[in-house]
């Protein structure tokens, strides 16, 4: 249970980090909070030759407002984001999701950007990024780009990031105030990875759905956006939605797997139940507000 030897670098600036990733040529791994990477190293499921620790780069920490969005720097600790009152005011859905990430102790080290760029299919934050329409900003020595979260994930722990790219910010667009938080997770104990989870937001305008963003986690090889379900809800009167039909549609968009904890059918069944219950409760509350 000891990591294989590696060369360790702790750059002080983004440029230094990008140079090291460029020089590392695919043999370099980025260390953010380390709460998933260190287990992978200890189990020797990952044996990089170079570790680039980005914890000593001040510009990679913190939460700030930009026009119409909230910018979260990647090394922002999950507990710091969870305790951020401004974030809770503008994006309560994200705060809710953060409260379910790992355990209190791992959230003290674990980072928002680390979880989002790792792409564990059962993790809360990648799904929240997909549901809420976040964009992931990545830099390399060759330039920068912004990738919509909906196009970011390609498989378990696999993203479109190139080996020399570093995530430098995640941009979460604003949702109208009063938008309803959708969140439900079924896990064997608090802090464990979800067996099935649903996260998102719904905006109502005079009782009708004007915007919806919903994503599943633990229901496929990546976080899965329930795009057809969102479309089916748009413009509908929230009080007259066909919950059973929508739940069926939303579950049909998933691709659940079987593991030691649950079969694919079990995941679909749980998904159907929590979709109908969570959405119905959230929207009733939203309609009354």
């Amino acid at each position, binding site marked *: 249970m000891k990591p294989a030897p590696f060369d*360790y670098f702790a750059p002080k600036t983004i440029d230094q980090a990008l140079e090291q990733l460029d020089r590392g040529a695919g043999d370099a791994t980025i*260390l953010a909070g380390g709460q998933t990477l260190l*287990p992978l190293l200890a189990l020797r499921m990952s044996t990089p030759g170079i570790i680039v620790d980005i914890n000593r780069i001040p510009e990679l920490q913190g939460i700030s407002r930009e026009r119409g969005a909230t910018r979260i720097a990647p090394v922002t600790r999950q507990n710091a984001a969870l305790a951020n009152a401004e974030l809770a005011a503008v994006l309560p859905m994200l705060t809710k999701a953060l409260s379910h990430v790992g355990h209190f102790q791992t959230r003290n080290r674990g980072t928002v950007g680390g979880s989002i760029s790792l792409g564990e299919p059962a993790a809360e934050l990648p799904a929240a990024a997909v549901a809420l329409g976040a964009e992931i900003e990545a830099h390399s020595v060759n330039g920068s780009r912004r990738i919509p979260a909906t196009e970011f994930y390609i498989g378990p722990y696999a993203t479109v990031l190139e080996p020399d790219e570093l995530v430098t910010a995640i941009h979460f667009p604003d949702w109208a105030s009063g938008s309803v938080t959708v969140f439900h997770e079924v896990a064997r104990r608090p802090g464990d990875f979800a067996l099935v989870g649903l996260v998102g937001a719904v905006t109502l305008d005079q009782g009708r759905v004007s915007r919806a963003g919903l994503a599943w986690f633990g229901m496929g090889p990546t976080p899965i956006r329930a795009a057809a379900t969102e479309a089916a809800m748009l413009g509908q009167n929230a009080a007259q939605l066909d919950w059973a039909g929508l739940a069926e549609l939303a579950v049909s968009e998933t691709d659940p797997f079987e593991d030691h904890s649950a079969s694919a059918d079990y995941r679909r069944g749980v998904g159907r139940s929590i979709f109908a219950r969570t959405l119905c409760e959230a929207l009733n509350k939203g309609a009354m507000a």
Partner: protein
Amino acid sequence: MSDHEISMTVNGRTCTSRVEGRMTLGDFLREKVGQTGVHMACEHGVCGACTILVDGLAVRSCLMFAVQADGADVTTVEGAAAPDGSLSPVQQAMRECHALQCGFCTPGVVMTLTSLTQGATKSDEKTLLNAMSGHLCRCTGYQGIRKAIKQLAAGEAA
């Protein structure tokens, strides 16, 4: 393979050493600083036995490299009691409520509860109980720990 000169404060004492990049903070504290109250068990972040405080925050010492704690202020269970040996409120509550059996998970539990109750930090019973999701007790002695938490939270509220 790189090695690094590091220096940190452990339980109030400055420790300087040369370490390989891959050495975890937990192994460093046990092997180089002699703080064997840091209990390494699963070594991949599941069990919580190795929990310590880094700059006042409860973290798993198996999920951090020693080199990352260069310059940090570290507290292990050895630093929980007062210098004269009198028990901290967390230790006292755990002692009175029989919140340990074999004692293996205890240092981690003590440090998590310490981080949530020390100084001006006040935490209610629910917060303390939720934080216990990050600890496994192989003796299944959770009821004693719950009792100690109840007592601690009552003391905090008073």
